[in-house]
C-alpha cells in the first residue's frame, strides 16, 4: 500500500500544470447578417442555445429607461406560430430550462434542452425573431410583472438600491447612468408603439448572434439554423449607437445615503476602461490579488485580521463601454465605515507603491487558470463565453486568446494600472449608514 501510494505521488508530482481546454468553435455569417457559432460537446446529450441581440439598457433613449428589459419579457408573449407563454411550456415539457437576461450592452435569450429538441428550439427562436406579436393587454400585464421585479430586486431588499444610486451619481452623460431595470415612471410611460419600434430596429438578424454548444454535428446544426433563419430579412432601420463618452472626472464624488439597513456599507466605483482594453487584464489579475480567496489581501486584512467587514470585494465590471471597478464593504457589527475605508484604501494604495510578490502573481494567475477550467464545464458556460467574445469583443477568437493575455500580466503592469485607476479623484463613493426605519 505504501509503495503504491508513493509511486502514485511521484506520478502526480510529475504532472505538468493542467491547462484549461480551449473552446473549439465554427463561425458563419449568413447573407442576412446573422452570426452563427457552434461548439460540439458530446459528453452529455444536451444542448445550450443562446440568441444574443446586441441591444441593452445603454441603447435606451432618455425617458425610456428599463425598456430593453421590459422588451425582453415581451419576447415570451407570442409570435405567429407560438402562443403567449407557450415558448417556456414547450421547453419545460421537454425537461429543458429557458430564460433571458438584459444587461447594459446585450439582451440574451437562452435555453438548455435534451439534444433531440434542437430543430424545434431553432424554429421557435426564429419565429420570435421574425414575427413577434404582442397584444396590448399582454403588454400591460407584463409591465406590471416588470414593476414587481423592480420592487423585488431594487426597492424591497435592504441593500437593493445601492448600485442604482452609485451609477446615477458616477455618470453624467453616458447611458450607464441608469441601471437596466429603469425607473417606475419610465416603465409606466412605455407604450406598445415603443415595442414595435424597438423590435423593428434591434431584433433583426444582422444585430443577432446564435450560439449553440452541445451534442450535435456542427454542419447539420448550421443547416437547421439556415433553414429557419436564413430568410428573415435584414433590419431596415439603421441602428444608431450612443457615442456618449463620460468625460474624465477630476474630483472624488461622495454620496451619503442614510437608510434603514442593518449594517453600514461602503461602495467605491473607480472609472476603468472597457472590456478587452489592454488594461483590463492587469486590472482583473489585480482584483484576484485583492479579493479572490481567503488569502487575498483585502479579505485577509479587512475580514480576517482586522475583522472590520463581513464582506469585502474588489472587482471590475467590464462592459462594452468604460465602466467601474468596485470596492465594496459590508461592515462587521460595531466597525465604522471610516476604519473600513482606511484599511481598504491602504490595500489599493499598496498596489501602487510596491510590486506584488512572485508567489502572489502566480497565485492570481492560477486562480484565473482555475476559473477558465471550472467556468467552462457546462454547455451553457461554453456558449456564454463564445457569445461574449463574439458580441462584446467583436472577435470570437478572444474566447481562447484572452487566456494568454492574463498569463502574460507582469508586476509592472499591475502597478501601472493601480496607479492609473485607483486614485481618489477617479472614484465615486457611496456610504450607506443605518437609520431607524421611517
Amino acid at each position, binding site marked *: 500500500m505504501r509503495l*503504491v501510494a508513493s509511486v*502514485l505521488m511521484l506520478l*502526480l508530482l510529475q*504532472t505538468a500544470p*493542467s491547462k*484549461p*481546454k480551449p473552446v473549439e468553435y465554427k463561425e458563419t455569417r449568413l447573407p442576412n447578417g446573422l452570426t452563427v457559432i457552434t461548439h460540439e460537446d458530446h*459528453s*452529455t*446529450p*444536451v444542448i445550450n442555445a443562446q440568441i444574443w441581440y446586441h441591444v441593452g439598457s445603454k441603447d435606451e433613449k432618455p425617458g425610456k429607461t428599463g425598456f430593453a428589459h421590459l422588451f425582453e419579457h415581451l419576447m415570451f408573449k407570442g409570435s405567429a*406560430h407560438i402562443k403567449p*407563454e407557450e415558448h*417556456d*411550456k*414547450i421547453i*419545460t*415539457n*421537454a*425537461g429543458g430550462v429557458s430564460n433571458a437576461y438584459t444587461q447594459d450592452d446585450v439582451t440574451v435569450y437562452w435555453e*438548455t434542452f*435534451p*439534444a433531440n429538441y434542437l430543430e*424545434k428550439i431553432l*424554429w421557435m427562436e426564429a419565429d420570435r425573431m*421574425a*414575427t413577434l406579436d404582442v397584444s396590448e393587454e399582454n403588454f400591460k*400585464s*407584463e*409591465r*406590471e*410583472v416588470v414593476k*414587481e421585479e423592480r*420592487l423585488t430586486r431594487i426597492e*424591497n*431588499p*435592504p441593500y437593493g438600491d445601492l448600485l442604482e444610486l452609485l451609477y446615477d451619481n458616477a455618470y453624467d452623460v453616458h447611458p450607464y447612468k441608469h441601471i437596466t431595470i429603469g425607473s417606475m415612471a419610465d416603465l409606466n410611460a412605455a407604450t406598445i408603439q415603443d415595442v*414595435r419600434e424597438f423590435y423593428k430596429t434591434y431584433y433583426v438578424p444582422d444585430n443577432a448572434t446564435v450560439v449553440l454548444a452541445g451534442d450535435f454535428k456542427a454542419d447539420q446544426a448550421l443547416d437547421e439554423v439556415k*433553414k*429557419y433563419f*436564413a*430568410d428573415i430579412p435584414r433590419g431596415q432601420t439603421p441602428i444608431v449607437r450612443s457615442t456618449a463618452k463620460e468625460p474624465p472626472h477630476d474630483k472624488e464624488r461622495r454620496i451619503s445615503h442614510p437608510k*434603514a*439597513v*442593518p449594517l453600514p456599507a461602503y461602495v467605491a466605483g473607480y472609472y476603468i476602461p472597457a472590456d478587452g482594453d489592454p488594461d483590463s487584464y492587469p486590472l482583473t489579475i489585480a482584483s484576484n490579488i485583492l479579493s*479572490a*480567496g*481567503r488569502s487575498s489581501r483585502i479579505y485577509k486584512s479587512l475580514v*480576517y485580521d482586522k475583522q472590520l467587514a*463581513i464582506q469585502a470585494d474588489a472587482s471590475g465590471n467590464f462592459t462594452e463601454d468604460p465602466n467601474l471597478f468596485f470596492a465594496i464593504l*459590508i*461592515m462587521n457589527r460595531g466597525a465604522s465605515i471610516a476604519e473600513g475605508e482606511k484599511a481598504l484604501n491602504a490595500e489599493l494604495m499598496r498596489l501602487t507603491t510596491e510590486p506584488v510578490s512572485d508567489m502572489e502573481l*502566480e*497565485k492570481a494567475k*492560477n*486562480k484565473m487558470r*482555475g476559473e477558465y*477550467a471550472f467556468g467552462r*464545464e457546462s454547455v451553457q458556460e461554453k456558449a456564454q463565453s463564445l457569445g461574449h467574445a463574439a458580441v462584446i469583443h467583436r472577435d470570437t477568437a478572444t474566447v481562447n486568446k484572452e487566456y494568454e493575455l492574463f498569463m502574460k500580466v507582469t508586476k509592472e503592469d499591475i502597478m501601472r494600472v493601480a496607479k492609473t485607476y485607483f486614485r481618489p479623484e477617479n472614484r465615486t463613493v457611496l456610504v450607506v449608514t443605518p437609520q431607524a*426605519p421611517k
Partner: protein
Amino acid sequence: MKKYFGLIGLFLLASCSAKADKQSAPEPKPLARVDFPTYEKRVLPNGLTVYALEYHEQPVVSLRLMITAGADNDPANLPGVAAFTADLLNKGTKTRTATQIAEAIDQVGGSVEASGDMESTVISASVLTDSVGLAFELMTDVLMNPAFSPAELARAQQQSLSNLTANMEDPDFIADAMFDRVIYGSHPYGHLTSGTLTSIPKIKREDLVQFHSKYYAPNISALAIVGDLSTADAFKLAEQWFGSWTKKDVPRPQNPEVPKMEGHRIVVIDKPDAVQTEIRVGHTTVPRKDPDYFNVLVASYVLGGTGSGRLSQTLRVERGLTYGAYASIQPRKGPGSFYSTTDTRTEKTAEALNLVLGELQKLRDSEVPPQELQNAKSYLIGSFPLSIEVPNDLASRLTTVFLYDLGEDYLKTYRDKLSDVSAGDVLRVAKDKISTDNAAVVLVGKADDFKKQLEGLGKVEVIPMNKVDLDSPNLTR
C-alpha cells in the same frame, strides 16, 4: 398595430414560399435513453463509501465528502453547533493555521470548503488535476485534525452574528426562517442551521469538539470523486488519505415530534417600510423515502414547479401580481415541507394570498387533466440529462442517493417511478397530504395596509420585524 404587423405578414409570405415549412413545429425525434454515467462504488474497511466517476471535459477534479449528520444533531436549544463545527474545519488544524490552509489552496487556484446543512455536513474541494494530491491532503487534514481554536471560533461567531443581523432584516430571509419555525416548532428542522442571535454567542469550543468526535465518522459518510482522474487512481488516493479515518458508533438524533398543524396559523411580520409582501403558505409533508414522495413531487410541479405551473400562470401571467410564484418540496429524512412562495406589492397582499390558497384547493378538488399531468412528469423526467452534466452535479447526485438511502438502483429507476404517477395518485395525495385549512401562512410586509383584508382566514399574529425572536415559543421578544 395592423399596419405594422401587415408588414410582418409580408415577410411571412416570403418565408412561406421558401422551402422550409415554418408553419408547424418540427417534432423532435426520440432521444435514446440517457443513463447516469458509469461510476464505481467501493466501501473502505472503515465503512467509508467511495464513488469514483471519470470526467475529462476539463482538467479538474471535484471531491465531495458528505457526512450524514448536520443541524438535526444540534444539541437542544443550541442551534448552530453543526454549522460552526463545519465552518471551523478549514480555519486551522494541528499543523496548519487558517491562513496556511487558505494560502495553500488559493496558490493552486482551487478551493476547499465545508458547510453544515440540516441533515448533512459537506466538505468539498475543487482543483485542477495537477493539484489533486493537495486536495486530498488538505481535505483529510481539515476533516481529521481540526484545531477548533478559540480565537477562530470567536471570529466566526462575530461574522455569523453580523451576517444574521443583516439577514434578519431581509424580508425574503425572514419569511423562510419564520415559515420553517412555524411548521416544525421546536424540532431542529425548524431551526436556522446557522444558529440564532441567542444561540450563536453561547456556542463553546467544547461543543464543536464533541460534535466532531461524535458524528464525524467514515461509516456514515460518502466520498464522491468526479473528474479528470482514472477510477483506479481515485480509489488509490481515497484509500491512502481516508483509510486511517476511524470507524465509530454514531448516535442517531432523538428529536421531538413534528407538531401537527390544526387550522390556519397566520403570522404577519410587520415591516412598515416594506413596499412588497413576502408570502409563504404550506405545511410539513412526507419524508423523502416515503412511497408517496413522487406523487407529492408531481403535485408540487403542477402547482408551481416552473414558470409554466399554475401559481405562475395565475399570479404572474394572468394578473401581473408578482415577478415569481412557485411551489416546492424541501425533502428531509423525516417530514419534509411543502410550500408555496411569492411576493407582491403591498396593496395586493390579500388577493395574492387568496389566489395561492385557491390554487391549492383546486388541486384537492379535481384530477389534474391528462396533458397537464404529462407536462409536469415530462419536465421531471426530461430534465435528467441536464442534471448530470458537470462534475459537481454528478457528485451531488451520488451523495444525495447516499444521504436519503435511496438504494443502488435509484438513479436507474426513478424515471420509471415518475412515469407511474397517475392523476388519481396526485388527487389522493392532494386530499391526504396537502391542506389549505391546516396550513401555516407567513406574511412579511407593511401589516397596517393589509391586516384587515385577512379577516375570515383565521387568527392573525402580528410581530414587529425588530421583535422577531426565533428562539422564543411565541416567536417574539
